[in-house]
């Protein structure tokens, strides 16, 4: 049984911890400090203490991650109740719309990728004649090619700490083909998902709580969590909901100045494009302004581009920040840029494999040595994920045997995602007091809910943020799990929740009708 933990409820930090943390608390989330109740058994303990909540690293206590937070604990409890007593709730399944985990909701993996992986996992298959009948010829060929690039064809060996060279070559070629500008395999660090790369950069950049990182609000809470874990300061910049979650340079400048006036040294700017949870795809002009801003202010640009293959609107296109910078004539000497990509998203959705990379450009050799050194302590990322990253950046091409089936799988998934994004966006906009910006990309909708005063008062009485209150009620009534906007940050006084667009299409009508019915009932109950 899942142990409950306390994220999302307001508890008092133990006084001494609170004093040391008060200078760092981000003001724009109402996510509560995650302190524990004082364990009575430690009150009488001596000054050398074992590992209890009182003696934990305070940065761990401060860190929050709502995507798998309290709402999920609640959902898992309901799921267990459903298992033991199927009629105990007004729904017969829990629908996890809290996390971008496509294959857990029925999305199929890309066949070609899995063929290559299976062959690399068990190369003995390549010696069997039956294999020709079970695997496509180009998958066999690609597996051979990949194995030839691995010393000793040993997929069970630790690789180079940046990842297998041949795979980095393929990724660099893929980046160059995408952008029209060259990429250097030595700039690439393959990681267990994009998240460890983000942690590495935060580790390098944050020296103390005086080092600040500019983050979009709302943001994917990996950033706030990572900054807290590394003891830095999150410097928020607000995306403009009224302007389709647009990013205004004037807002960046304002927040930068504000931070500086408080003695914070701002080290980097995080941009998530396409956005999470907001889904906006930046316009090229906007991106150029951002690059200029970073160059002028001496900031490292941390470009989270994991949703680069998830764009659903015809009038927007993904452009990497690397491409934008190079097209502006800016090279290694001009802009320090780290670009993150992952195998978890796009149309491949291989979350469970933990694969991704960061492309690190515009840093001096001795800094890169330090990045390498940190990567080497963990030896290397998992080989399966490395192989997938190379396949994602170098997929079947026109003329390849698998190209047609690959394309049809890819387009099928992307078109379906676009359809679901639209259906859910419309559904949310039809709810009383709810507005929802279009999901131009990524995998989420982030509707704004305007809650009646009675609801807000009830939430306060329950010591819960209003959007968490709404989300828990939604879960209890429908089995649908969404993440309260509090977990991502939002303009104070506004409330949102993040819902993925990932349930399979045949489930969407039920999701819409249950959600709509719930909302009507909720508003009826709490209407002013």
């Amino acid at each position, binding site marked *: *049984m899942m*142990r*409950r*933990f*306390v994220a999302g409820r307001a508890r008092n930090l133990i006084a001494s911890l609170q004093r040391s943390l008060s200078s760092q608390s981000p003001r724009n989330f109402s996510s509560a400090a995650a302190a*524990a109740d004082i*364990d009575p058994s430690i009150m009488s303990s001596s000054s*050398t203490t*074992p*590992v209890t*909540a009182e*003696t*934990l*690293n*305070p940065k*761990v206590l401060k*860190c929050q991650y709502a*995507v798998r937070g309290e709402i999920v604990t609640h959902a898992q409890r309901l799921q267990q109740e459903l298992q033991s007593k199927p009629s105990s709730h007004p729904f017969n399944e829990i629908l996890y719309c809290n996390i971008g*985990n496509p294959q857990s909701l029925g999305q199929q*993996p890309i066949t070609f990728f*899995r063929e290559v*992986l*299976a062959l690399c*996992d068990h190369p*003995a298959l390549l010696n*069997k004649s039956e294999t020709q009948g079970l695997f496509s010829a180009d998958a066999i060929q690609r597996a051979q090619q990949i194995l030839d690039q691995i010393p*000793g064809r*040993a*997929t069970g*060996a630790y690789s180079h700490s940046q990842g297998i060279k041949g795979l980095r070559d393929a990724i660099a070629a893929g980046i160059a083909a995408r952008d029209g500008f060259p990429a250097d395999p030595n700039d690439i660090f393959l990681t*267990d*998902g994009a*998240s460890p790369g983000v942690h590495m950069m935060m580790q*390098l950049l944050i*020296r103390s709580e005086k080092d600040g990182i500019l983050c979009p609000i709302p943001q994917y809470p990996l950033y706030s*969590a990572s900054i807290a*874990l*590394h003891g830095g300061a999150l410097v928020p910049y607000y995306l403009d909901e009224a302007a389709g979650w647009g990013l205004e340079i004037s807002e960046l400048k304002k927040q930068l100045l504000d931070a500086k006036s408080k003695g914070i040294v701002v*080290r980097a700017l995080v941009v998530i494009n396409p956005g999470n949870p907001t889904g906006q795809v930046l316009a090229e002009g906007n991106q150029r302004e951002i690059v200029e801003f970073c160059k002028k202010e*001496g900031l*490292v640009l941390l470009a989270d581009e994991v949703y680069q293959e998830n764009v659903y609107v015809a009038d927007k296109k993904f452009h990497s920040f690397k491409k934008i910078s190079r097209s502006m004539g800016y090279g290694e000497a001009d802009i320090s840029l780290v670009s993150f990509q992952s195998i*978890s998203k796009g149309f491949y*959705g*291989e*979350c*469970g*494999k*933990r694969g991704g990379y960061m492309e690190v450009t515009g840093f*001096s050799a001795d*800094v890169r040595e*330090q990045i390498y050194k*940190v990567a*080497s*302590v*963990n*030896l*290397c990322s*998992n*080989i*399966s994920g490395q192989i997938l990253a190379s396949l994602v950046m170098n997929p079947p091409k026109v003329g390849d045997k698998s190209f047609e089936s690959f394309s049809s799988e890819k387009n099928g998934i992307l078109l379906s995602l676009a359809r679901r994004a639209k259906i859910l966006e419309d559904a949310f906009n039809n709810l009383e007091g709810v507005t929802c910006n279009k999901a131009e990309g990524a995998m989420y909708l982030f509707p704004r809910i305007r809650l009646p005063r009675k609801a807000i008062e009830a939430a306060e009485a329950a010591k819960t943020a209003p959007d968490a209150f709404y989300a828990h009620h939604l879960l209890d009534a429908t089995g649908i799990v969404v993440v309260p906007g509090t977990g991502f940050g939002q303009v104070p006084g506004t409330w949102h929740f993040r819902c993925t667009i990932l349930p399979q299409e045949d489930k969407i009508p039920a999701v819409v009708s249950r959600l709509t019915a719930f909302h009507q009932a909720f508003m009826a109950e709490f209407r002013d």
Partner: protein
Amino acid sequence: MSPKPLDYESINENVKKVAYAVRGELYLRASELQKEGKKIIFTNVGNPHALGQKPLTFPRQVVALCQAPFLLDDPNVGLIFPADAIARAKHYLSLTSGGLGAYSDSRGLPGIRKEVAEFIERRDGYPSDPEIIYLTDGASKGVMQILNTIIRGEGDGILVPVPQYPLYSATISLLGGSLVPYYLEETANWGLDVNNVRQSVLQARSRGITVRAMVIINPGNPTGQCLSEANLKEILHFCFQENLVLLADEVYQQNIYQDERPFISAKKVLMDLGAPLSREVQLVSFHTVSKGYWGECGQRGGYFEMTNIPPKTVDEIYKVASVSLSPNVPAQIFLGLMVNPPKPGDISYLKFVTESKAILDSLRRRAHIMTDGFNSCRNVVCNFTEGAMYSFPQIRLPPRAIEAAKNAGKVPDVFYCLKLLEATGISTVPGSGFGQKEGNHRAIWFSFFTVTSFEMSLMLLLSGSST
């Protein structure tokens, strides 16, 4: 050109302090030479498959089927996969929620954690709770997570054996804590004397350090010694008295090359001690698929089991694990297979046992060959490798060699290892990377996967002539 936003001066100091010799200077030089076309034998890291050890067949069959479940629908699948591999693949797929491509529970798939718990129970004779077993992307990540939970600042000290696997020193540096060394006794086959540990603790406390945890590596890395039951009891009593969390790195538990001291887990000894220790002493035990006779380093699979850690602390550890979403699923399956291998009567049992035994027997032989080989060299003394995967011989370098090293601006053992590399292509790790007692002796660490008899005699030749 204006200073870059992140230049060397403005990097987090803790990062700069980190040293990880396993992939440091020697390895980088070896890689350079390899690029120039020289044949290099990498013995710097416990990476069996890179040196010719073959993966076990059964797990690779199972995972391949899990990667490509469409194979299971093909009528011809039985022609190239044995029935038990097919059944096992279906079993593991049923434990996932969406196959290998879905994030699992942040602690790892419940079904696999249950298999791990059952393994631990069979091994130790005491129940194990799957709820407090966390699967991780390699044991290293688990170590980092736990140390990150404990270390608040430089006032917090972690007892670490010297010599040690430099993951510990590197992680403590990165987290801004203090490493409190305790010395293993080379003359007593790298034995652990609790009096040494007590000394270290007193010294640390006198410097104002709060000692929080004690790391033991059993079997040892780089030293290979296997702790006796008596030793483990002493250590547990010590941790109880001094209020320390015991961090038991047991990743080499399958690599035992002598029969006097079989592997006993810290958990078993703790439970055997009974109350109050069995209910009070806090323990975290680490294991992996990278070592043993599996050697599946590239999968990045490991786990840690917590004992007597308070629920609220476990919640915080869970919270941090959730930020990384989940450990990679294929490695979780490898872990499941490792703790739950083919059984007598299974179709694949005979092949599995034959493959496993061959690897272990070979490792045991090589442990003897290497130890004897080193001991037969002039000015080299080498303890027997009781377990793990490494030889850690002590080389007494002549004064002229030490002088030459100084002139080259190198630590003597680094100097020796570089010369060895240039002459033979054998890439090792200097003892200074693991920590060693101050004094005239220097040691190199030499992972003994490679070694054909030809290469062995080459190395011996060199050792003989370098003095």
